[in-house]
């Protein structure tokens, strides 16, 4: 597998490069900035680009923008975005549209080499990977009313794995059940949460993430004028959740 690394922290970038090299991954390029990364990818497209989200010049979300640019120009190149902090906003931005060949992980994950290699492999072959701790946080967030309340314990386990980007086969392996059982669980979950049942394995990641993001806390993103009205009557319980 051929990989390009992009991170302005040289210590970390070199460390990852050496670890990967020792485990048979070919690191064909290293970049300091998003711009440099896009140039390297254009010159010689790798299987996967591993990108730190914060890079010069603004140190905010250059990695995310570079990943989107690569995905648009080179759909066959997988992108794995690493970050010291994970947040649903970034995850949704990354998996919006074609949620294929993308990964979004806490940067620490690179130190668990076995799992990191697995992530690279899955992304390179068309899969989606979302940081498990983020998914756990979304599922655990207090919600009123809890739309996940209707799910069985087993279904909740399956939901978490769907959100992380696991395929039906991956879920079956993880839970030591047959693929048919997993498919039944997935259909039941999608029905209970009122999500489109016909979404493919990758697109359903986005649907589930968006669902969790919207229901972890009740969010109304209304027009300002609506807000004004709602806000003006807040004192009388108009915004109280039911």
């Amino acid at each position, binding site marked *: 597998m051929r990989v390009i690394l992009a991170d302005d*922290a040289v*210590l*970390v970038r070199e*460390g*990852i490069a*050496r*670890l990967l090299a*020792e*485990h048979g991954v070919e690191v064909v390029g290293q970049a300091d900035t998003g711009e440099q990364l896009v140039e390297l990818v254009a010159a010689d497209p790798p299987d996967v680009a591993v990108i730190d989200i*914060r890079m010069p010049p603004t*140190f*905010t*979300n250059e990695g995310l923008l570079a990943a989107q640019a690569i995905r648009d120009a080179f759909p066959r190149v997988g992108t794995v975005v690493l970050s*010291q*902090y994970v*947040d*649903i*906003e970034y995850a949704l931005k990354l998996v919006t549209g074609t949620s294929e060949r993308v990964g979004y992980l806490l*940067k*620490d994950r*690179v*130190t668990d*080499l076995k799992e990191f290699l697995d992530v690279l492999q899955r992304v390179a072959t068309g899969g989606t990977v979302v940081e498990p701790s983020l998914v756990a*946080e*979304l599922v655990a*967030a*207090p*919600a*009123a009313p809890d739309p996940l309340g209707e799910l069985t314990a087993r279904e909740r386990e399956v939901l978490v794995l769907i959100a992380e980007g696991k395929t039906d086969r991956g879920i079956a392996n993880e839970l030591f059940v047959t693929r048919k059982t997993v498919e039944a669980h997935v259909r039941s979950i999608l029905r209970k949460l009122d999500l489109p049942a016909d979404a493919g394995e990758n697109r359903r990641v986005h649907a589930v993430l968006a669902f969790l*993001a919207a229901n*972890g*806390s*009740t*969010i*109304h*993103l*209304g*027009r*300002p004028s609506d*807000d*004004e009205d*709602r*806000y003006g009557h*807040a*004192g009388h319980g108009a*915004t*109280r*959740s039911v």
Partner: protein
Amino acid sequence: MSRRLLVASAMAALLLVAVATTLILWAHGFKETDRAQELGEVVLDAVWIATGLVAWQRRPGNRVGLLMMAAGVADLVSHLYWSAPVAYALVSVLSGLQIPIFVHLFLAFPSGRPTTRFERRFVASLYCAWIALAPVALLLADTSDDCERCPSNPFRVVDSDAVASAFGTVASVLAAGVLVITVVLLVRKVRRAGTATRRAMGPVLLAITIAAVSLVPLVVAESVGSDLSDTTVGLISFLAWCAIPVAFLVGVLRTRLQRSAVADLVVELGAASRPDEVRDAIARALRDPSLELAFWLPANERYVDPAGRPLDPTSDGARAVTVLENDERRVAALVHDPALLDEPELLEAVGAAASLTLENARLQAELSAQLTEVRASRARIVEAGDAERRRLERDLHDGAQQRLLGVRLALQLARGRIADGDGSVDDLLTEADAEVGDALEELRALARGIHPAILTDEGLAPAIAALARRASVPIELNIAPERLPEPVEATAYFVASEALANVAKHARASRATIGVARTNGRVAIEVTDDGVGGADAEGTGLRGLRDRVEALDGQLEVETQAGAGTRVTAVIPCA
């Protein structure tokens, strides 16, 4: 001025008039002039003295009344017709005093003092000239030349007609020069007069014009050899001349009306509390709408306008500056129409009347200038604090966090290299790796608390949503997804964060709401819960929040009732 002095002056004047009248009626014979006309002149002088007395009585502080009396007396003296040589000589010299007195009167009208330094020096030099020349005149003049039966000068020492006529010529030239200078000064005075001075001078100028015009038919008649002085025309002219002192009196009384403007000012100032109201009141009292008021700030050594903005009062041809003092401390400066310099007494009275209120207003102006500065510096402190938080977060991210990650990677490499070796070393490395992992986790939480990256990157709504997901109770969010100015976003975030921390710690709530709405140039952040209430609005957390919000000119309100939940509302201006 005592009533006795006034009565005594009146009696003395009456006596003088009686003497003059008696002399004209009984001793006038030696001088071949028209007796009726002489009597008329005495009456005119009596009018000057009487109106001067009234002016003096009504406006004791104004010298115009005294000057009018002096002018009348001086002229009256010149109409004392004693045939005794000594008396005749003294009278003819004394009558020269009329010139300085009349010039003084005209230049001192209506305020009582000549306005400019030149005018004052001019008047003083006229008096000095008379004092210097009178003895000379007494020693040189040939009084027997005045008329056929006029007595000769008993003081005369140089018995030379040539010297006498030379002196006479010099005196005439001097008198002509004085007349020209006086007219020039008067014209300048009229042109530069302020509203108040014009009001006072109007009647005088009108009366003089009428009197001068009334002379025209008499002069014309005389040039063709007829005398109209005993006709109605002559009477009209006489009355017109009598109107001049009356006009002076009216002018003086008009400035007295002006004085009542000072009284009005005192009343108005009682009601004026704001610095700009004080300015308006003074502008009305001085009848100068363009008046500017500048307060002196001793600490900053500069002037500011009533709104607290710096102002530099400078005196040029178009504007004049009068500095007002209270107890010899500079309080304020008036930048006004230079015409008001004609009325130094008015300016002084207005300054005195306004000084206390001005001192008050000056303190207010000083306070608002300081407040403006304090506000700005408080906002700067908060912004500097935010910038520092962002820098800290970035330092942690780029420094400690990356290094620890590097250490973890190195540990992984080490583990890979000794995979076939000693199991205990592998255990140690695993343990070390777990420790570093925990340290990274703690650093991450710390950095997020210092300044969440998502707030900078994505804005308030996602940042608060992330906050809500980690909250202890379900949160209903109602946040418009627009970006706001950085300080507003940061403050709103910390309001939500602190309020949620309180919900978790004290409220025992089952749910909470967070609303952020932008309306009418303000952003309102509201956090409510259904907990037990009783939050301490003066506790350190809420106190710190209040300081933050107020630093942006906002307001923080905490409504909390035992058993009825808590509502924290912050309203921040946001153009």
